[in-house]
């Protein structure tokens, strides 16, 4: 088939940071390795879908967007099984996450998105989502009672915070930052390297809980319409470039957050009080969010969750 002069790649965030740089790296690698046959232009900050993140998958399926390095959260309205990664307190560490996404559940998820019109090439990462707030250190399930938390606008996240007794609020990031400053919203949840450090949230929130309540993997995907137009040689090059770029991106996203997590020192140096959850505390939180787990298990697919549970030895 004919190749387009330029292919469009969508990224929800800006060009700085692991996510944006990883996408750019993929585009550069592909251009280099195909001698310019495949020329990908990155559109950052959600430009291609006019700010409505949940339309990204739809536009890929239609072929308006060719490539995306996308968060599973933004694709979950069309692919509910991607909520697997948002099951409350499901994954304890990176080893568990890697085992699931590289194992049978990961392959099943890629099969499902391909069925819906998008080919998955590789897994990237935004990070474990952690809780910051201005009121108090959170280390027991009752501490969230009545806390107003800005939550990413996805039903499972809202359900989880409800179950914890918090008051989840869904507002756009721009407004949220003003609300943190004014104290009309008490807390938020986001990854450390992607959001908490770059946005210097210590200026508004004194407390952070490293609770790993959900993980936010990224998928480097390509519209099936676009994918089918490439020669098998170029498809192989694309797959390899995706694997290389994502390996680098995941390493960046995890930088300083493995082992004894030296990145947390940056937070402490800026006056934050850091609470790292122990397995016992996590168990208590898991207990309190059990109803969410049971309800979403069905929406995600019993088989898929069971497969993942088996890998995690639960």
């Amino acid at each position, binding site marked *: 088939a004919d190749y387009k002069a330029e292919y469009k790649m969508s990224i929800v965030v800006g060009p700085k940071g692991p996510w944006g740089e990883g996408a750019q790296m993929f585009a550069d690698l592909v251009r280099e390795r195909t001698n310019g046959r495949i020329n990908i232009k990155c559109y950052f900050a959600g430009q291609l*879908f*006019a700010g409505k993140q949940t*339309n990204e998958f739809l536009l890929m399926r*239609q072929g308006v967007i060719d490539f995306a390095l996308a968060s599973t959260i933004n694709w979950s309205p069309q692919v509910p099984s991607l909520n697997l990664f948002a099951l409350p307190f499901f994954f304890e560490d990176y080893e568990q996450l890697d085992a699931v996404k590289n194992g049978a559940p990961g392959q099943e998820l890629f099969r499902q998105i391909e069925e819906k019109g998008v080919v998955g090439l590789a897994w990237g990462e935004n990070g474990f989502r952690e809780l910051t707030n201005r009121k108090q250190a959170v280390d027991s399930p009752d501490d969230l009672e009545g806390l107003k938390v800005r939550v990413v606008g996805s039903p499972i996240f809202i359900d989880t915070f409800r179950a914890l007794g918090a008051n989840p609020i869904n507002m756009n990031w*721009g407004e949220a930052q003003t609300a943190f400053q004014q104290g009309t919203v008490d807390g938020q949840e986001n990854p450390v390297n992607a959001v908490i450090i770059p946005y210097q949230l210590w200026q508004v929130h004194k407390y952070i809980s490293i609770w790993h309540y959900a993980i936010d993997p990224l998928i480097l995907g390509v519209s099936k319409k676009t994918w089918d137009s490439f020669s098998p040689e170029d498809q192989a090059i694309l797959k390899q470039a995706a694997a290389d770029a994502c390996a680098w991106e995941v390493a960046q996203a995890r930088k300083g957050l493995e082992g004894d997590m030296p990145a947390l020192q940056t937070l402490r140096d800026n006056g934050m009080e850091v609470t790292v959850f122990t397995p016992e505390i996590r168990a208590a939180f898991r207990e309190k969010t059990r109803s969410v787990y049971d309800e979403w298990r069905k929406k995600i697919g019993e088989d898929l969750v069971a497969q993942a549970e088996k890998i995690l030895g639960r």
Partner: protein
Amino acid sequence: MDAAFWLFFLFLVLLFFGIPIAVAIGGVAIFMIWQFDLGIQVISSNFYAGIAKYPLLAIPFFILAGMILERCGVSQRLVNLASLLVGSIPGGLAIVAILVCVFFGGVSGSGPADAAAMGAVLIPAMARKNYDREFSAALIAAGGSTAIVVPPSIAFILYGVITTTSVPALFAAGVFPGILAGLSLILPAYWISKRRGYMGEERGDLRKIWAAFKDAFWGLMAPLVILGGIYGGIFTATEAAIVAVFYGLLLGFGIYRTLDLRTFYRILVDAALSSAVVLLIVALAGLYSWAGATLGVMERIAGALLTLSDNPWVVLALVNVLILLAGMLLDAISIYYVFLPILLPIVAHFGWDPLWFGVVMTLNLAIGQFTPPVAVNLYVTTNLAGIPLEKTSAATLPFIAAMAMALILVILFPSLSLYLPKLWGLY
């Protein structure tokens, strides 16, 4: 043919022949997306996404609030009070007009709405006092334009949505520049009135002033209710708008008892239609700027502008002239969507403050609202005065000059814009 050429040329030609702005900008957008194979399916989902944004909800609510407050008689009461206070000096009614326009700008977010509300009361009153019709039409069109700088402001809401700047912070940034722009109009108004011998009103005694004050009190409180809530951290801009709506209803049905259900229905319809006209442009202009950005046209133009000079002052002057000229021809909404994708890279390049730039740009557009040949506010006031728009060209000149002076001050002293947002912890 070059994409940039078609994007701008087609749009201008269609506008020139009087095709509605929404249709012209949307037609060009869809044509470009189709012709350059950008993915035509995008139009439906991006059209939808262009409207379905929480901050945009403030637009119908502020329009509704403004209409309720106007029709329950707040405008007339403000005029009465202001007349008794400052009406006795030469050109008293002209100065009153400016003051109430700026004050009503504190509840209305739209220039033409402010000009219509105040013009309906003041233009007949000024005619009775033998003010020249061209003069009063130009004066109230200029005064009404401050409504988009004084918070609340639909212009700031759109700027905030496009640039992801905080709307409450923009509102705070507009307070002093808006008042300054209003005050600047007093100089030419006074000077012209004195030269032409427009006499003042009778001086009000304290008893009369007190009575008028009591009568206008609830109207005087309206801006405080709106802005107090935002700055007290109680409301978002959208919530402040809805509180204003119910404050207006309380006045109209409870305190002044000037509203009835039939009038309320008319207000709802009028507010809904006015909002729809604005938001239809918003959605279709969004497609236009999407096409421009995806084609890379906007980036290229920004780059070209930057090669003209490295001196920020030269570029700033250029940018101001560009927006001012655009404002003479185009409406404010399309200007934001057409020009911001070009201007934002320049703002970032020089490290200009986005809040300050938003105020500067909006002041330029305020001036555009009363400069012929295309001037939404003049269109309203000349209709009320029963004169052709073209005849007011000369009468607008002193006001254009005055507000340009205010603009220069706002450019030179960024703290005029940034002091309040910083003080209130919004920025």
